[in-house]
């Protein structure tokens, strides 16, 4: 029996809130995909915040969803089943416009039809805006394609109950000095793994743990694609 090709994943890292760690997740994920697949295409829709393009300029393009032309430039590429995983660092100011457009052009349904798998990594926080936005997304995108990210750098306590019911990706907090270290523009997670020979360091284990979580998401994506193909 021929092996089915898995769909092309499109990871959308988002939150309606500011400074919740979207870019950190986008960096980690982009570097993981680059290491695993040898290629990744990341988009930075985050122009008013410190952003992905500053960290990973070689694999990141900027995008803008404030006008139709910008939407075409972005979405017409996201819908392609070209085997290259995409990562979108969606700034909080573009959150509403982006998902409004997705509803209008039926992005999720068309993506599935084109063998593209959108995966929303929603960075949760405890405020009402976040809970409301999560509910809206939950009606559009079902688990396992909607994953809450519990970024413990930002949200020290529990996630709101509704967000904890579906799949959750937990990013543990590092000590402040390590956080400052990984926030440097020149820091590379994969570069650190390659050059730091001591695999017992806290940072080494933290990066590996997160890469393993992303690997699990990829595996579950392949499994559901295989199940879908058999149905």
């Amino acid at each position: 029996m021929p092996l089915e090709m898995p769909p092309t994943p499109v990871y959308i890292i988002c939150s309606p809130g500011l400074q919740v760690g979207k870019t950190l997740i986008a960096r980690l994920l982009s570097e993981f995909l680059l290491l695993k697949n040898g290629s990744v295409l990341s988009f930075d829709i985050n122009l008013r915040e410190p952003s992905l393009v500053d960290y990973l300029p070689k694999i990141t393009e900027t995008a803008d969803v404030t006008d139709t032309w910008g939407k075409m430039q972005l979405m017409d590429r996201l819908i392609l089943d070209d085997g290259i995983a995409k990562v979108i660092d969606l700034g909080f100011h573009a959150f509403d416009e982006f998902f409004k457009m997705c509803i209008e052009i039926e992005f999720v349904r068309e993506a599935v039809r084109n063998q593209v798998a959108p995966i929303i990594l929603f960075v949760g926080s405890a405020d009402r805006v976040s809970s409301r936005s999560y509910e809206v997304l939950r009606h559009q995108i079902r688990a396992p394609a909607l994953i809450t990210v519990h970024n413990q750098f930002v949200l020290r306590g529990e996630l709101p109950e509704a967000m904890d019911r579906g799949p959750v990706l937990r990013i543990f907090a590092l000590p402040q000095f390590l956080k400052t270290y990984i926030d440097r523009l020149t820091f590379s997670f994969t570069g650190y793994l390659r050059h730091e020979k001591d695999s017992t360091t806290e940072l080494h284990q933290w990066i590996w743990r997160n890469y393993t979580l992303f690997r699990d998401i990829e595996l579950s994506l392949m499994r559901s694609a295989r199940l879908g193909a058999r149905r």
Partner: protein
Amino acid sequence: MAKPVVIVVGADKGGVGKTTVCRTLLDYFSVNKVQTRAFDTESPRGTLKRFHSNITEIVDMTTTADQMRIFDTLNSGLSVTVIDVRAGLLSVALNSLRDIGFLDSVKSGQITFAVFHILGPSIASLDEIAETANFMNGAKYFLVKNFINDTQFFQWDQSTYDSYFHRIKGATELTIPKLNEMAYEQVEVASVSFVNFVANKGPLDEIANYSFVLRGYVRHWLANVWSEYDRIDLTDLTGTTAVPRSSET
């Protein structure tokens, strides 16, 4: 044999979107499998014909020969005839229909007749309603507020509009929502029907390469327009039943 149905789309003002409404009607009938033909009165160069060339003929409604081409062939077997009336010709066309006895046949129930009157933003549009109403005995009269080109209907006082609207028994109001400008422009450039644009097909049914985003906008907009046609039971008017639509279109 099914009763012939004639739908006239017109306005006395230009640029209010008559042809756009015609195009949505032809697409609607096509997906509902209603046999349709269309006449484009933008003689000698048709606009409607550019988008629906296989079912559209260009005619000059002021000439007797072309009036015969349209009305002497109503029983040709195609159940719906859509006429896109050129700007400024609506009153003239209705007068001609009265003169040739067409409106009498409508009154006596031999022909189903509907007018889609596309309203503009100015007060003059309201006077057109009063004028057109004189011809509507036995016909279906639809007043279409077309927002496709971002018309604001700013000059209208609602009570004035209502007083005109209520003068016509059985008049029904329709709203055509706005379509994203770039999407509209791209369909114009492609010169295909809205349905073909959504399906990513070129003028010869070949696979095209239209933007996914723009196709999405058109699909969403067309679904809204068609839900207005469903609301007014447009297929009932033609004696057919609406076909359940897949989300393809």
